């Protein structure tokens, strides 16, 4: 085990100490004097801790502690007290004078600081470490004294668990790690919540049963109802009934409605997260870890928020592609197409990603904001406007927070409502004129609602199960030392931009190219031939073949770049 080679001197030293000091029963004269000098020390305290199966993290830590830490820190974490020094033979009780660990320590040994060895347990011990992660980071970087930094992260975490147990914190089979350590306070007990699975699965099951009930409900499609008075604003957002031709899943893929549903989930879960999130650089990552580790169902709420956002990006892309590949943006829907594109860009949002303020976002934040500086003329000003200072800090986090909670939400709400309103104003989802439709029926209000609720129930149950199974990423808090190197990958929906950035000039590749892609998509209905009204409502109409081909080309390029970025980034 080459990993441990540098520890051999320590082990030999420890073994020597044990031979001389720990076995008074040996009949040699020197150890007999040791026995008479230490009549009060119980030698059984020096024996290896019993092995437990299955071992908890703290049990593993106890073994590591016994092998590496106990000689100086004591069997109970009491530190190098006089009482603990009594376990050593008399001539070795002054570590500084005996020559082993004084300032003139030999090359294969180390000096013990003149200030002594601190206690790890008891009143006032380790008071400068507020949580398990900070204790872990200190151990990992500084312990053992000879040589510092030689522990694996697994060993350091197990030692942190052992030290927590020495201080009376009982964690049972909970395993400390980078994703939860800062949520566990050092100096007070917290209750660990039970599993989220029973509650979450029960809710998903009830939703699916309700969906089953709704699916058995006999469908009701009726003829065209007499159009009442001029429909109001709310009727524009949700019509009392629509032509059946506009509600074909194979045409719409349900993407627009699903996007609205996911946005609503984001709104609710985001509101819930606000009750525990603390937007300061010191507390942000800790508060997120507290939410996911200690708050009952907090992990589920955060996963729902995270995965809704990820799926929303996918669903919005599908929606955009559907509209482009069916030519549905043809006049009179050109303006609403631009509105939708604006929602899409607004919600490709970077701020939610940054609010974690952990090691995982560190480099993405630096790169993403420095990219602003590359914009000619206004770059510096833009950077300071977004960051609120010379480099990302409290001001930047406050701005991202304010934007994410209020600016983004309000902006998206206005645009989404406007977008939905315009759908109705433009005559509903794009289909051929009434006399050219294959399906002449209209859906009644109850039938429309039934289909919508059914889709929401199925999507909600699927999202719930996914969020129960797949955790959203979270890293350790950003430490100034920078000893723990963070993830340097962009969020997945910006991987293609990250890959472009490797090609050359940051402004051309990272700013101008993505902007041009968006401008080109927006210009499709204005520059290229559009589908005829008779061929609307189906995929790949012949009228806008050129636009379809170019859109497909862009999608292909973005996909290839994303895959390249994901592969080379590993």
């Amino acid at each position, binding site marked *: 085990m080459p990993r441990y080679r540098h520890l051999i001197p320590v082990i030999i030293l420890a073994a020597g100490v044990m031979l001389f000091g720990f076995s008074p029963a040996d009949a040699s004269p020197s150890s007999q004097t040791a026995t008479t000098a230490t009549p009060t020390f119980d030698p059984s305290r020096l024996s290896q801790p019993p092995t437990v199966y299955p071992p908890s993290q703290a049990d593993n830590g106890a073994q590591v502690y016994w092998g590496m830490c106990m000689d100086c820190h004591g069997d109970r974490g009491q530190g190098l007290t006089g009482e603990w020094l009594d376990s050593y033979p008399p001539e070795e009780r002054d570590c500084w004078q005996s020559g082993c660990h004084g300032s003139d320590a030999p090359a294969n040994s180390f000096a013990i600081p003149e200030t002594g060895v601190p206690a790890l347990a008891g009143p006032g011990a380790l008071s400068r470490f507020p949580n398990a992660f900070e204790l872990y980071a200190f151990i990992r970087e500084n312990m053992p004294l000879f040589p510092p930094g030689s522990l694996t992260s697994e060993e350091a975490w197990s030692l942190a668990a052992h030290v927590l147990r020495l201080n009376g914190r009982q964690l049972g089979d909970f395993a400390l790690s980078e994703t939860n350590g800062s949520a566990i306070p050092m100096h007070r007990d917290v209750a660990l919540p039970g599993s989220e699975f029973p509650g979450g699965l029960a*809710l998903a099951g009830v939703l699916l049963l309700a969906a089953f009930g709704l699916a058995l409900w006999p469908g009701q499609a009726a003829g065209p109802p007499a159009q009442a008075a001029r429909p109001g604003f709310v009727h524009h957002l949700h019509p009392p009934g629509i032509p059946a031709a506009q509600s074909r899943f194979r045409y719409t893929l349900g993407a627009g409605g699903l996007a609205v549903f996911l946005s609503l989930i984001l709104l609710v879960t985001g509101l819930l997260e606000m009750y525990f999130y603390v937007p300061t650089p010191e507390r942000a990552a800790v508060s997120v870890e*507290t939410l996911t580790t200690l708050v009952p169902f907090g992990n589920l709420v955060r996963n729902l928020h995270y995965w809704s956002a990820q799926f929303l990006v996918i669903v919005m892309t599908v929606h955009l592609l559907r509209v482009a590949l069916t030519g549905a943006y043809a006049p009179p829907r050109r303006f609403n197409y631009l509105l939708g594109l604006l929602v899409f860009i607004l919600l490709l949002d970077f701020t939610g990603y940054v609010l974690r303020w952990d090691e995982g976002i560190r480099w993405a934040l630096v790169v993403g904001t420095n990219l602003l500086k590359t914009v000619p003329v206004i770059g510096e000003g833009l950077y300071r406007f977004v960051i609120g200072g010379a480099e990302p800090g409290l001001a930047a986090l406050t701005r991202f927070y304010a934007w994410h909670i209020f600016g983004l939400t309000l902006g998206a709400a206005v645009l989404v409502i406007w977008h939905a309103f315009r759908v109705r104003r433009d005559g509903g989802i794009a289909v051929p004129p009434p006399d050219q439709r294959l399906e002449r029926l209209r859906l009644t209000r109850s039938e429309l609602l039934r289909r919508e609720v059914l889709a929401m129930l199925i999507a909600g149950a699927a999202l719930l199960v996914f969020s129960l199974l797949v955790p959203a990423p979270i890293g350790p808090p950003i430490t100034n030392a920078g000893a723990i190197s963070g993830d340097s990958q962009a969020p997945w929906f910006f991987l293609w931009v990250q890959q472009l950035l490797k090609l050359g000039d940051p402004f051309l590749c990272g700013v101008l190219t993505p902007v041009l892609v968006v401008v080109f998509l927006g210009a499709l209905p204005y520059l290229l031939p559009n589908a005829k009204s008779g061929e609307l409502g189906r995929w790949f109409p012949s009228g806008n073949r050129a636009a379809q081909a170019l859109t497909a080309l862009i999608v292909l390029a973005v996909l290839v770049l994303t895959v390249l970025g994901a592969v080379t980034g590993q």
Partner: protein
Amino acid sequence: MKRMSRREFLRQVTNFLFGLAGLLGLGGLARYFSFQTDPGPPTEFDLGPVAAYPPGITALRPEVPALIRNDGSGIVAFSLACTHLGCTVEANEDGFTCPCHGSRYDRDGMVLQGPARESLRRLRVEILEDETLRLFTDGGRP
């Protein structure tokens, strides 16, 4: 018993399931909000060596907040939180006055004038082995 139509049966079952889902969600929410992020305030305070509290002395501890007094018969401590709605009362010559709603207490913390109805809380003080004084804010009503 009236025979229920298939449609009516489905409607009632589905409504029941919606209600059940809502109840489950509400239960989860209640548990979610039950979590307490902040540790409570400390319940023990070190007041320093006993020798610093000779007979006749009165000391204020605004961080508790409490008043420690040695009348000669021993050291007593009063919580300065008004028993009405928790404002910190002001100590004066003949007792305590609350600045918020005007409750008054005598030197022993007994109510002289409302709206407070209960006397000021007496806090437990203990002399530790090392001759220092420790104040406990939990329990301790005499």
